[in-house]
């Protein structure tokens, strides 16, 4: 995107056209773009297929909150809801690698350096 003050630039774009990041599945579709070079339509279809949801649901925070909970893909804690007993941060990335069926560099490094078996 580019530089500018966070409200005027980042938030304006996020509300005008963005998928919503971890509120929805923007981070998952973005991962398929960044590391697999998938165009938007292909990346959305891929993620929707792996999650078992419709493409039209991918940017819906209400629907995706439950999907992320069920699959352990990480959610954003807020004042009213926290998730200390659910997957978050690196834990969630282990699940994302499995659900999306893509290698994640940091997950592989973690697995190697922690002495975990592949797929553990």
């Amino acid at each position, binding site marked *: *995107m580019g530089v*500018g*003050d966070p409200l005027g630039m980042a938030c304006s*774009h996020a509300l*005008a056209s963005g998928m919503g990041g971890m509120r929805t599945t923007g981070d998952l579709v973005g991962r398929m773009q960044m590391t697999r070079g998938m165009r938007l339509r292909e990346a959305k279809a891929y993620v929707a297929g792996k999650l078992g949801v419709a493409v039209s649901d991918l940017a819906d925070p209400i629907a995706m909150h439950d999907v992320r909970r069920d699959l352990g893909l990480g959610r954003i804690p807020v004042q009213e809801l926290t998730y200390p007993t659910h997957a978050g941060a690196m834990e969630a*990335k282990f699940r994302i690698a499995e659900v999306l069926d893509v*290698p994640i560099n*940091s997950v592989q490094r973690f697995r190697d350096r922690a002495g975990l078996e592949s797929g553990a």
Partner: protein
Amino acid sequence: MERALRTRLGDGSLVEMTPSEIRADVQAGTEIGARRAKAPPLTDSELDHLVDIFASESKFSAVDMGDEIVLSFDGTGNLDSGSRVDELYSYQSHRGADMLELFNIDYSYKAIKTILSFEAQWMKTAQLNLVAPVQYGAMPDLGRYSMPDGPIPNWSELMPLGRIDEARDAQVAAISHAVEDMVFVAEGMWEAGADGLDFDTAAAAGDGDFLATLTAIEKIKSRHPDCGIELGMASEYVLGMHGELTYKGERLAGMWPKDQLRMAEAVGVTMFGPAVNVNTTKSVAWNVARACTIIKPAMEIAQIPVHPNVGMGVGGVPMSPYPPADAVSRVSRALVDILKVDGL
């Protein structure tokens, strides 16, 4: 008589224009973009849609539900609250970022090489704490290799003296240093767990800068095929500072986004970011029409996701560090609606 509406110039200031004046501006913007980039002008229906977006005083404008795109956030964070990882977390969790980018304020691979272990440690910490994909970003920044900042004779000083061959030789010598530094940093970041690398404002120093970037990316991808690579351009066309440099037989100087994209795809880039500069004295509507016209040929052939640069002063966004939301949101919507971009 038509009522005048408030709209913005490329510097962000408010002006009053009638819908007819806005229509004339988008027409002029697409015509000048088409002439410059040797591209077709936007169609009448596309121009009509731009007028619909800009001939309105609503405080905000947005894409239709279902048309949302991915936001890649190069240079994530404002460097004013907590650590850089705190800022990445804030953008992930509070600002809807789909991707994140760890960066240093000295945004140059040459500079980062000297502090790589420190930067790579931050990358490892970021990766342990974040869910969204995190890339590392900096500029290829070929100019840093010329004297007095670097070891190579300064081609910008040699050229005015008519010492053209020496200026060209200097750029070629600088390219090898730049490639080495970019690959060196990439290796460290990949080892630390980065999801990808961003080569931002590529070709800022012209065709030599672009060639160095393409060469480095090709090397990185040959070693790490799973590494994401974002190539963001510095401006709308590649300056011919050398003028005769080629990649796979194609002259790099003078390339516009469509050809820049072809080069990016050829070396294994996974995301491409064209940059179209803003004219601060023209309306945002004029600038967006021009940007759409210049980028559209790239969208028509793209095999990889295209994320046009829409930060301060590019892609139609006003040249202000505090851009008004009414203008930014219209630019965001226009690029999605007209170009069907994959992200911004």
